[in-house]
C-alpha cells in the first residue's frame, strides 16, 4: 500500500499502461514539460521521452483527430483536453467521427483511445471552466463514459479504459485532485461498467458520481447519526456501460432512490437511472424518487452562488429527509 493522491494516480495510471504497452502514447496541452496544469502528468516526459509524451499546440481538434487517426491505425493513444468544457471546441471529431467510425465501417477499424479531461466545478473558474459534461458524452452512441471518484479507481479504470477496444471519455474531477488514499501496490486493473457500493444501508439508495460520491457518503453519515436513516451509497463510476444490476438490486432492497448529480438538471444521467428503475422495478419503490442536481443554469463565478448551485452535503441531507417522511 502506498498513499496516492487522485492527481498522482493519473500519472501513475498512465505510466502503468505506457510501461506495459509501447503502443500507448500521450499528448495534450502543457502535459509534458510542465506536467499538466493540474499537476496530473508530471514525470511522464522524463520517464517515457518526447516521442511518447508530447505537448501540443492549443488545437483541440488536432489533438482529438491525432488520437483518433493513430488509434484507427494501431496505436492506443491517450489525449488530454485540459478542461472538459473544451470538448465543445472539438465536438465534431468526438461525436461525429470517433463515436461512429467503427460502426459505419462495419467494424473494419477499432478505436482503442482514451480522452482524459478535467471535469466539474467548485473552483470559481466561471461558466466556461466548471461544467460537468458527463451527460454530453453519455448522449452520444458509441462513446464509453467513465468518471472515477477515488485514486485507486483512477488507476484501475484508466487501465481498463486504455485496454478497452472502444473509445472512452475519462472524466477526472478537478475538485478531487487533492483527495488521498492508500492504493494497493502492483498493477491495478479495474473493469468498465461496474458500479461500486461504497456504503451499505437499508432505507434508501443514493446513487452518485465523481465528486458527488464523497458528498453523498458524508451525507449518509449525517443521515444515520442525526435522522436514523440508513443509506446505501452507490458510486456509478461508469455511465456507459452502466451497471444497472447493482443499482436495481439495491433499490429492490431499500425501496427508495435518490440520485446526486453535478450536471445541470435537464437530461442529467440520473434521469436515465430513474427511468430504468421506473421500467424495471417501479413496484419495489415505496415513495417518489428524488434527483438532487445542479439547477439548469450555467455556473456563476461568484463563490457563494457556485456553492449554492452544486449539490452540497446539506442539500443532500435536506432533500433526503424531506423525501423520507
Amino acid at each position, binding site marked *: 500500500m502506498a498513499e496516492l493522491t487522485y492527481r498522482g494516480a493519473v500519472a501513475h495510471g498512465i505510466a502503468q499502461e505506457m510501461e506495459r504497452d509501447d503502443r500507448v502514447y500521450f499528448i495534450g496541452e502543457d502535459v509534458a514539460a510542465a506536467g499538466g496544469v493540474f499537476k496530473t502528468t508530471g514525470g511522464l516526459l522524463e520517464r517515457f521521452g518526447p516521442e511518447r509524451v508530447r505537448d501540443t499546440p492549443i488545437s483541440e481538434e488536432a489533438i482529438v483527430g491525432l488520437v483518433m487517426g493513430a488509434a484507427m491505425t494501431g496505436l492506443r493513444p491517450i489525449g488530454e483536453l485540459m478542461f472538459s468544457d473544451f470538448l465543445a471546441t472539438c465536438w465534431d471529431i468526438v461525436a461525429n467521427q470517433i463515436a461512429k467510425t467503427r460502426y459505419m465501417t462495419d467494424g473494419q477499424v477499432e478505436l482503442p483511445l482514451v480522452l482524459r479531461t478535467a471535469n466539474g466545478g467548485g473552483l470559481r473558474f*466561471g461558466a466556461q471552466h466548471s461544467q460537468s459534461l458527463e451527460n454530453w458524452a453519455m448522449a452520444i452512441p458509441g462513446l464509453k463514459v467513465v468518471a472515477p471518484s477515488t485514486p485507486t479507481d483512477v488507476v484501475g479504470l484508466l487501465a481498463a479504459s486504455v485496454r478497452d477496444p472502444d473509445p472512452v471519455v475519462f472524466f477526472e474531477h478537478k475538485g478531487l485532485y487533492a483527495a488521498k488514499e492508500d492504493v494497493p501496490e502492483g498493477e491495478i486493473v479495474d473493469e468498465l461498467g461496474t458500479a461500486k457500493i461504497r456504503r451499505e444501508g437499508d432505507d434508501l439508495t443514493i446513487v452518485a458520481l465523481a465528486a458527488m460520491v464523497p458528498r453523498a457518503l458524508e451525507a449518509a453519515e449525517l443521515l444515520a447519526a442525526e435522522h436514523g436513516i440508513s443509506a446505501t451509497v452507490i458510486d456509478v463510476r461508469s455511465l456507459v456501460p452502466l451497471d444497472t444490476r447493482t443499482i436495481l438490486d439495491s433499490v429492490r432492497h431499500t425501496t427508495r432512490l435518490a440520485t446526486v448529480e453535478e450536471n445541470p438538471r435537464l437530461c442529467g444521467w440520473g434521469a436515465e437511472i430513474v427511468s430504468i428503475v421506473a421500467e424495471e422495478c417501479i413496484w419495489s419503490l415505496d415513495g417518489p424518487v428524488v434527483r438532487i442536481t445542479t439547477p439548469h443554469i450555467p455556473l456563476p463565478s461568484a463563490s457563494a452562488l457556485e456553492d449554492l448551485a452544486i449539490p452540497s452535503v446539506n442539500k443532500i441531507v435536506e432533500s433526503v429527509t424531506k423525501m423520507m417522511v
Partner: protein
Amino acid sequence: MPTTEQLLSMYERMLLIRRMEERLSADYAAGKLPGAVHLYIGQEAVAVGVCAQLTDRDWITSTHRGHGHFLAKGGDPKAMMAEIWGKRTGICRGMGGSMHVADLSKGILGANGIVAGGIAIATGAAFGARLDGDGRVAVAFFGDGAANQGVFMETLNVSTLWGLPVVFLCEYNHFCEFTPSETVTAGQISDRARAFGMPCAVVDGNDVVEVWRAAGEAVERARGGGGPSFIEAKTYRIQGHLEAEAVILDGKYREEAEIEEWRRRDPIDRLREHLSAAGACDDDGFAEIESRVSGAVEEAAAFAAEGEPADPELAFDLMFVGQRP
C-alpha cells in the same frame, strides 16, 4: 505621430492597467480573489495603443487575459475590480468573474474563457457593422496560442471574402501557458493572414506609438470599407500565466534573465522616457499622474471590498429574457 495630449493620456491609461493589476496580484496572494486571475502586465501598450484608435461605438473582443483590454476600452475600474472579487457591484454582478468582464455600453463584447473564443465573435460584430453601414469597427484581441485554433483560419477567410471591418490583433507574448510559443507554432503567424491577401503588420508591442500607428491604419482601412487587417504585436508576458502559477508548477519554463531583459523594455518606462526627452512631462507631472492613478486603484479596491456578495436570485433571473425557468 500622436499629439502630446494623446501620449499623456495613453501613458496614464497604461499606468492605470499596471497599477490595477499589481493590486490584483497582491490581493490574489492575500487570498482575497476567487478563481483564476490572468494578468496583462508587460503588454499594456498593445491594448492601449489599439483602443486609442477606437470610439465607444466600436467593438472589441478579448481573452482570458482581459483586464487590460477592458480598461483600455474605457471600462470602469471599480466595476471591473468588483467583478473580479465576485461582488454584486461588479460589471456583470459577479456572474462572470475575471475571465468574463464585459461592458456593452463601451463596446466591450467580453473577455473569454475559451482560447480563440472571441475571434469569430468580433468577426460577427464586424458583419453586423457592415450590414448596418454605420462605420463601426471590431477588433479581436487574441494570443499567439489562439492562432493555432482552426477558427482563426475560418475567420481570416470569410472576413477577407466579405470585406468585413475587423482587425485581427494577435499579441505574441511568447507563451502558451507554460509552453514556449515557438515550440508549438510553425512559421510566422502573420504569414497565415498574408495567405488570404490580408494587409499585415508586425510591430513592437512594447512601443505604444508603433502599435497606435499600425492600429490607426487598420482601423481607418476598415472604416473606409477596405476590409480586414492583421496586426501581430510582439510583446512579453511578465507575470506568470495565472496568479496561481507558483503553486501549480514544480519546475520552471523560462529564465529569470529573460524576464529581466523584457523588464528593461517595459512599455510604460519607454513611453515615460520618450515623454521626458520630448519635454512633454517632468517629474512633477509624472508624480501627479501616478497619484491620480493610485487614487483610482484605491477607490476601485475599496469599492470591490465593500460590495455585497453576488445575489443568489440572479442565478435564476438571468436564465431567459423576462422569464424565470
